[in-house]
């Protein structure tokens, strides 16, 4: 959300996407004090965020902004993995360490499990990963198979995408589809038609990273359409507001996909604030920032709304069950402008 940072070197993340410098910026960066009043009382659910790449500052700010639950999809971590053990440890961290870390901030953590499209191109490793994947998809708090789909749209990507659609059917889990950056429209259509070919019910499939060009077809065929609010490479938050104005709220959800690139874990609360400013009704905002994500992923049977709806600890000093990631004697840092570190 970097409208004011035109001099900032763009750093395309997740997957390359050359940016034309003549683009009109569609990102609006908001400071906490500028938008906190607008979103007061809202609760948010981020159905796509890679917390493994984020800091405790992010967690604190997310909790403060009203994010009560997140889904962390298994994905490519930037450094290619060379062996099965790295995959095992990564999957374990999604249901172990990351789940715990999130709980420290009163945020309920779910995940989706899958072999991402980029690493599906390493056939030797992909075969091994497919063997252990069933061990993880049945774990508590796994709400789907994801993020899977196409990157370069190779034959191997298709092979493992199809195998994982079958796994999703068998495990009775929703599917979270990553759509490619390059040749997005064709990749999106291809992902959907293969899912239908495998007999998946479109209402069990969340198609992610949509834009103005893909959304209509996704919704018309009965899939969920997720939008990623991500500076430079994906959807701008101003553009997102226009999409909601045009398509309404049914089966639309927004997420941050915040990861190891320049991204914003507060994309949802900020976009909600923009929607409030633009006069979009509160019930529509609630649907695209909270309810629809729950409706889609709760089909896994793994989401108990009471786990995060009842009380949001607003004070990070409140330790979750007496546990803390904070080292002895540390206090959570609320005031980031303070000069003193005690």
């Amino acid at each position, binding site marked *: 959300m970097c409208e004011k940072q035109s001099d900032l070197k763009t750093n395309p993340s997740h997957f390359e996407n050359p940016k034309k410098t003549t683009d009109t910026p569609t990102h609006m960066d908001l400071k906490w004090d500028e938008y906190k009043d607008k979103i007061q009382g809202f609760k948010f659910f981020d159905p796509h965020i890679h917390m493994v790449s984020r800091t405790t500052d992010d967690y604190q700010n997310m909790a403060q902004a009203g994010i009560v639950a997140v889904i962390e999809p298994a994905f490519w971590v930037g450094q290619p993995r060379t062996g099965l053990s790295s995959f095992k440890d990564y999957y374990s961290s999604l*249901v*172990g360490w990351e789940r*715990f870390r999130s709980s420290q901030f009163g945020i309920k953590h779910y995940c989706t499990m899958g072999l991402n499209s980029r690493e599906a191109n390493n056939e030797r490793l992909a075969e091994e990963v497919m063997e252990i994947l069933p*061990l*993880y998809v049945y*774990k508590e708090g796994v709400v789907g198979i994801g993020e899977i789909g196409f990157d370069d749209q190779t034959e191997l990507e298709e092979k493992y995408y199809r195998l994982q659609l079958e796994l999703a059917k068998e495990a009775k889990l929703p599917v979270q589809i990553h759509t490619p950056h390059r040749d997005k429209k064709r990749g999106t259509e291809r992902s959907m038609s293969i899912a239908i070919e495998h007999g998946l019910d479109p209402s069990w499939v969340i198609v992610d990273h949509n834009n103005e060009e893909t959304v209509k077809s996704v919704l018309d065929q009965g899939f969920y359409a997720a939008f990623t609010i991500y500076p430079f490479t994906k959807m701008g938050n101003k553009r997102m507001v226009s999409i909601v104005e045009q398509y309404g709220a049914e089966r639309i959800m927004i997420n941050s996909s915040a990861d190891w690139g320049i991204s914003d874990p507060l994309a949802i609360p900020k976009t909600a604030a923009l929607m409030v400013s633009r006069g979009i009704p509160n019930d529509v905002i609630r649907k695209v920032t909270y309810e629809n994500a729950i409706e889609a992923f709760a089909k896994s049977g793994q989401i108990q709304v009471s786990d995060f709806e009842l009380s949001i600890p607003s004070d990070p000093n409140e330790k979750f069950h*007496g*546990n*803390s990631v904070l080292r002895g*004697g540390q206090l959570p840092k609320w005031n980031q402008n303070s000069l003193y570190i005690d």
Partner: protein
Amino acid sequence: MLTSNSAYFYPLLGKHTTEAEMKWLDSIPKDNPNALMTAFVKAPRFLSKTIIQEELKDQNLIPNLPGFQVNNWNLVRLSRVWFLSFLVTLSKNELIEKIETLFDTAELNELVALFSSLSILPYPQVWLPRATDAVRSNMGFVFDAIALHNPFPYHEFPELAWNQLVLKTIFNEKPIQMIYGLSQRKNQNLAISLISFVKERWSAGRDVPPEIWQLMVPYLSEGELYLVETLFKSRREEDVIAASLICSQSELKSFQLLLTKHPKFQEEIQNGKWDWSKLGNNH
């Protein structure tokens, strides 16, 4: 053939389950290790997270296993430990292989159940490396499962590992009172570590939890008298109470003499108003 402790869990499960939940628990074939392992993993899909509130808090759930208690566990954790208790009838190699597999693929809540179950499994020496590793865990729930209300470390940990467990509990700001066997395993090395911890914290202008002094009392010599004098000057009343308790429990004359300068606390301790369990994180 080893006998299982599973019978002790059964009445408790009956008390905390719905009919459908009990039906599922009963449906698992207890003589089939793979079915038990699958049930261990799948438990949250069939059971609620009802908290187990035991009325018999002061009695042992398992008579020959003091310190093993399930109070405040949830139903999923209790059921998982119950499933594991049936595996003890396997051969040694088979049992080790099954438990290791569960450990290697465990998520957070499964790890908690596994570490909670160590006391009811045979071959403690086999699990020792994993247990000492759990103390290194940064996942608070995993740490708690091994360190608090668990008799396994008391019986099995060598001194160095035991001392690390106690120190880490203090660093994590958790109540050391919940460590089973805490006062029985006081030792000189632990006291030395704690005395230097105190000096370090005080140099940095920080406090230490007042309840940790109980672990140093028998090992404080004349040379440490000045630490207790400093403690008496603290602005926190609980530090002063800790200092008074040290002096009242010390066998050294100089320490006992120091307490007479604080008659109010001397009297309150004599009247039983103060003990270590009322201080700091224990409180």
